[in-house]
């Protein structure tokens, strides 16, 4: 798993790449917790275009970031979701809670 982030001030874009499963999610959750605490974003985007695989562990990661931004009364969206991850998001119904913008172009 690779986690990269960019953005100035209270704006934050986080890009995840690799395989997001129960094994890799532990480190991702830990890193994102620290990052959210440091940046306190009011405008946060999670870019999933680099994900080669995601299971329900990814739902917990997305909800974790969503809750933190929601507490700050900020805006949050998930962007550029690859087809396999999009099927998992669809089956979970998380798209009713979190804004999902566009699928990844492959």
């Amino acid at each position, binding site marked *: 798993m690779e986690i990269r982030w960019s953005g100035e001030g209270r704006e934050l874009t986080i890009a995840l790449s690799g395989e997001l499963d129960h094994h890799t999610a532990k480190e991702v*959750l830990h890193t994102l917790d620290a990052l959210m605490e440091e940046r306190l974003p009011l405008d946060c985007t999670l870019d999933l275009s680099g994900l080669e695989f995601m299971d329900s562990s990814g739902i917990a990661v997305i909800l974790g970031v969503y809750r933190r931004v929601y507490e700050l009364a900020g805006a949050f969206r998930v962007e550029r979701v690859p087809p*396999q991850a999009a*099927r998992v998001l669809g089956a979970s119904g998380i798209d009713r809670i979190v804004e999902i913008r566009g699928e990844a172009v492959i």
Partner: protein
Amino acid sequence: MKAPLNEVRLRFLSRSRNEAFIRSAVAAFCAPADPTLEELGDIKTAVSEAVTNCIVHAYPDSLGWIAVRARLFEDGLLELTVRDRGRGIENIAAARAPMFTTGGAERSGMGFTIMESFMDLVRVRSAPGKGTTLTLRRRLHSRETSPARS
């Protein structure tokens, strides 16, 4: 059921790093049936959910063995069984309900929901203290024979 065209059995320790290995192994096993990318993604996801359940819930405080059997039948039916000898499930109906988890904030409680959405059949047999056997079935629609689905 007729005899399968092919069958593999894999037995591995409940270490989380094995999740990636086992879903890739099952995907490779399915390759001769010429599954679509969507079918392969669905199967890998279901396997990942099933094995994660064993690691998180069957053996929460210890390492144990997980056994996966994959069988492929002539008509494109894939059957997977995932068996552990762990803690077992007290209330199977509750465990299968969406958003139910005993795994804390790290888990979403959506594992069974996703398996049920991606597989044609999800069967759970469990006895507290003895372990759990999960059976998953999915009919693969070869790209050669049914282009409409791909």
